[in-house]
């Protein structure tokens, strides 16, 4: 992991790509929420936070409400505990209906459970139809960013991927690249048997799935094939359709700076008798995959408020240095740093909550006001507690116990400071302890002052 972070930071081309893309998204976001255009932005955030709190604190109730309202329109809710259950459901349905080809629109939830790989393993073809996701599928890579999955790819990278995987001429004009993808994907849309989408929101009081997108591929995915399956984490529920007035204003702006995205689809149930298009069958997979475990912690359960806008990634100075692929899971950036340890257990990637300067820029832009720095701090103490209980504390716990002891003994603190001030200038860099070696690998080290404040103050005499 260390070397990869190092490589990313040292790669000027990649740094420029990340910086430019996230910077552009941030600038657009700022414009779109400026007080002249959206005076009630802060009120909307507060409302969104309260609505999500209401949904998450009463999730069982809203799930049942959603399920019964969905059934009223002829849709069917499918509860799945984990990735295997989702794959089994889709495979079973495909077998029964004789389906072979699946088109997919962008969905972090399906990325989370490696759905494509699981389906392909059983002989189904699952094609991503979001342009960024399609590029990554061809390149065999996972998303770099929650909203802009191929953010790290330049058009020259895309030209190379297309010519290698699609056998087309080297094409570096973005519009033409889009047309190449469009030609391939149109064929897929027309012959697919099943369309799988995610869900940006599940609306409990109307049993509707809301999809938000810019390319129109999600709308095609959900309406062209005979069967539509929406895969959603159970936390994507919101109480009422009217709450979309809050969430839709915030999502597009926070994600890409759009007051509203190009397409917003409200899907409730399959095609009705008097309708000319839409699927014959409509399923909503309600995925747990560890979410109910997060509900157990009254403080940290706010992590489930996330509406996957990606604003915290764009503003995060750490994400902007290390990029998306150095995070251990598909959820990167600040939100990834708080949910990954909760889904996987803190000891799987114990370094993750520490990879933050705690600057708080994420919390400032979060449209649902998740207290990310506070949760990072809690996860840090969860890590140290887990290490202690597994007997893996190492020298750090000892070091902080010594620190606390010294800090409770001001004379010893003063004495040690005076000793350090005398010795420090004579210690060669090669003999520095690890932490100081790490410091000087990037920066000059200030020497302790020859005389500390307490020494100088004593000499100065009390006024």
């Amino acid at each position, binding site marked *: 992991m260390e070397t990869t972070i190092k490589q990313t930071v040292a790669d000027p081309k990649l740094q420029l790509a990340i910086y430019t893309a996230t910077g552009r998204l941030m600038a657009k976001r700022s414009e779109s929420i400026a007080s002249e255009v959206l005076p009630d932005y802060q009120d909307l955030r507060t409302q969104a936070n309260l609505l999500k709190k209401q949904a998450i604190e009463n999730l069982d109730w809203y799930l049942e409400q959603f399920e019964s309202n969905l059934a009223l329109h002829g849709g069917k809710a499918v509860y799945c505990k984990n990735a295997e259950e989702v794959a089994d459901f889709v495979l079973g349905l495909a077998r029964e209906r004789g389906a072979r080809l699946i088109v997919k629109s962008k969905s972090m939830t399906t990325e989370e459970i490696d759905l494509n790989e699981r389906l392909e393993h059983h002989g189904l073809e699952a094609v991503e139809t979001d342009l960024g996701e399609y590029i990554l599928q061809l390149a065999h890579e996972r998303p770099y960013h929650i909203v802009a999955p191929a953010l790290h790819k330049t058009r020259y990278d895309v030209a190379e991927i297309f010519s290698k995987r699609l056998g087309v001429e080297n094409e570096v004009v973005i519009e033409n690249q889009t047309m190449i993808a469009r030609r391939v994907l149109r064929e897929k849309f027309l012959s697919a048997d099943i369309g799988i989408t995610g869900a940006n929101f599940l609306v409990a009081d109307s049993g509707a799935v809301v999809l938000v997108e810019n390319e129109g591929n999600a709308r095609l995915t959900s309406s062209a094939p005979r069967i539509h399956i929406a895969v959603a984490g159970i936390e994507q529920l919101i109480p009422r359709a009217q709450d979309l007035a809050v969430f839709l204003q915030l999502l597009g702006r926070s994600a890409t700076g759009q007051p509203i995205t190009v397409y917003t689809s409200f899907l409730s149930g399959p095609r009705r008798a008097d309708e000319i298009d839409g699927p014959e069958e409509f399923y909503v997979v309600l995925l747990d995959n560890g979410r109910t475990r997060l509900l157990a912690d009254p403080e940290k359960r706010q992590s489930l408020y996330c509406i996957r806008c990606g604003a915290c990634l764009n503003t995060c100075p750490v994400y902007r240095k290390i990029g998306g692929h150095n995070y251990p899971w598909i959820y990167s950036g600040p939100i990834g740093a708080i949910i990954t340890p909760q889904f996987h257990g803190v000891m799987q990637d114990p370094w993750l909550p520490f990879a933050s300067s705690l600057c708080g820029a994420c919390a400032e832009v979060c449209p649902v006001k998740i207290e990310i720095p506070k949760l990072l701090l809690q996860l840090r103490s969860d890590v140290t507690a887990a290490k202690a209980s597994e007997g893996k504390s190492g020298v750090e716990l000892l070091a902080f116990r010594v620190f*606390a002891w010294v800090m409770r003994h001001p004379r010893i603190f003063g004495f040690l400071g005076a000793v350090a001030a005398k010795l420090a200038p004579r210690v060669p860099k090669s003999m520095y302890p690890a932490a100081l070696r790490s410091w000087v*690998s990037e920066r000059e080290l200030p020497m302790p002052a020859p005389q500390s404040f307490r020494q100088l*103050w004593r000499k100065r005499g009390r006024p």
Partner: protein
Amino acid sequence: MPRVSLFVTCIVDQAFPKVGLAMAEVLERLGYEIEFLEAQTCCGQPAFNSGYLEPARAVARHFLRTFQGSEYIVVPSGSCTTMIAHHYEDLFAQDPAMLAEVERLIPRVWEFSKFLLEVAQVDDVGARFDGVVTYHDSCHALREMKIKSGPRRLLSKVAGLTLNEMDIPEECCGFGGTFSVKFPEVSGGMARTKIESIVRTKADTVVSIDSSCLMQLQGAMSRAKLPIRTMHLAEVLASK
């Protein structure tokens, strides 16, 4: 005039004593009687931010004991003030007796620039500083204490001083306590991004209200052989 108790912070005490002296000088000039309690050490933030709550609590208890009798505690750091005024409550959430003590402490703890503007109610301390400066918003001061315009207002009253704003004044310098040594490349990269912005201002001095940010920026600027120095706001305000 009431008496003011300095909490100079461990880093200023040991590495940047001039900042503490400058703060004392400015406050004395305003007529305050200054006390420095020698029992003081650290607020406990290094342990707290590293996930070691017990050691952090031990240091916090020591702080509370040390300053129990002080009416005004003035601190040359937004970060340490935040630790005391925001996170002690988290540390002692399960301990009602300590929590009550923390609640009594919080209104008495003042970040230096905030104390000048809100308690002393002065923005012009009669300082003179000939130079072009840029102001770095330290994260905790900015985002947890909403300190943004105050230090700039104080700087605007300094004779001879020109303030040039960065294009990214609010971006983190990359210090982050132990983060700076746990992830040196990332921390160093963040510092370089900030420094590029500093250079664009053509300032000769970077000013902040946190010595830890300044240590990071100075360390990285010296490494890059840039002739730009860092100064704590107190040092600028003490200049004549």
